């Protein structure tokens, strides 16, 4: 679901232009308001949604779950570490609210300290496996991760 800008809410501050990793948020030359110049290239990271101080950037919901006339509004709150959604259908009757964590540790506290990790040996460098790959796919000890081995079970429906 690519993002788009409500021109009436945008004040042209340029925060979304600064943060967009795809460089597709730009300022309209005539109106001095931001817009997504290439929604097809939007990878939906919602960095611009988070950066916008006026909540002027919204999400264009896919037609299958939110047909024309809908509203999909989202707030990414970095201090709370959550993403909150509110989806209204065009008949105005269906009004869904969703809330999910986007981080469980304070920002910057889980940065891997790679300087302390032992340097890879020659065999590891020559191997086709990536850094830490054997550990995560458990080729060294035990089998692959499964729901069962992790104490999980499949639940019916979409879980929020």
């Amino acid at each position: 679901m690519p993002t788009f800008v409500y021109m009436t809410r945008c004040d042209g501050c340029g925060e979304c232009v600064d943060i967009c990793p795809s460089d597709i948020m730009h300022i309209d030359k005539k109106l001095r308001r931001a817009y997504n110049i290439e929604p097809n290239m939007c990878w939906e990271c919602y960095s611009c949604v988070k950066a916008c101080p006026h909540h002027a950037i919204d999400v264009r919901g896919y037609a299958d779950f939110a047909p024309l006339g809908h509203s999909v509004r989202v707030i990414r709150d970095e201090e709370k570490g959550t993403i909150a959604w509110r989806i209204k259908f065009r008949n105005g009757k269906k009004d869904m609210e969703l809330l999910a964590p986007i981080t469980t540790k304070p920002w910057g506290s889980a940065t891997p300290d790679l300087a302390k990790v032992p340097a890879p040996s020659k065999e590891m460098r020559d191997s086709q496996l990536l850094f830490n790959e054997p550990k995560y796919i458990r080729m060294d000890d035990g089998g692959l991760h499964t729901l069962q081995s992790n104490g999980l079970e499949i639940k019916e429906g979409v879980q929020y």
Partner: protein
Amino acid sequence: MFAINPFASLSEVISPAMMQGYIVLMILLVMGGTILDMIHKKSAQYFFENAKKAKKSATRSVSGGEKTSIAASVLVKEVLTSGEFSNPRRRLSHLLTMWGTIIFIVTTAIMIFGYSTPEASTPALLPQLWHIGALMLAVGGYWFWFSIRVDVSAEGLPWFRFERADLFILSLLATATFALIWSFTGAGLTIFFALFILASTVLFGGVYWSKFAHMFFKPAAAYQKKITRADGSRENLPPDYDLTDPEVQRKFPDIPTYMGKNPPNMGLCIKAERAKHY
């Protein structure tokens, strides 16, 4: 120099009636341009339709007293102190430009209507305020033009690239700059006076093509935004959840499962430092 009324010396060559006529003409141009701008952009129509739509999804009604206090807070926070800007540099530059413009225009009108004859003894405060206003406008405006303007600060374009959308700030800057140069070079009928008049005519006459009219609809938009927060419609935004609230935790079990019963403040993240890639 700062204490001399430039319009008093100008009145030796241009009659005060002509100067007053010019002021009245500029007021009419601003009014006409604003009305045309509103008709063309349909901003007032959009505003009322939007307000009606927001009212439909309101969860509570806002009392008259509450509306008054919201209007007062808009006046203090958004109108008088430019509180809608989240970037402090942008806010400071806007404050300098806005108050500089107001002081400059008001003192110009007072001096032209009250003290525009060579014999008139202008209170020293008026020309001092006129010069200070123009200087504030120039400082805030040039700061904005060279470093804060979004084309320069975020788009990485050179400062000399301009579009029609820059008509307002450029004519404002030209008005203040040429007014100051004209005053400092004796306030006579010089080329700087011609440039000052040309710039101010473009500023007030170009309202339809510039963003001059924002001063009228911005406060209305800020008021409407606060009303949507008060009546619960929140422009369809999700509620501001309290993550420690058991009701929220029951409705969204992922929160206590992954973040604990009492989630900590995660920190500023992207607000921790400003982007500085240009």
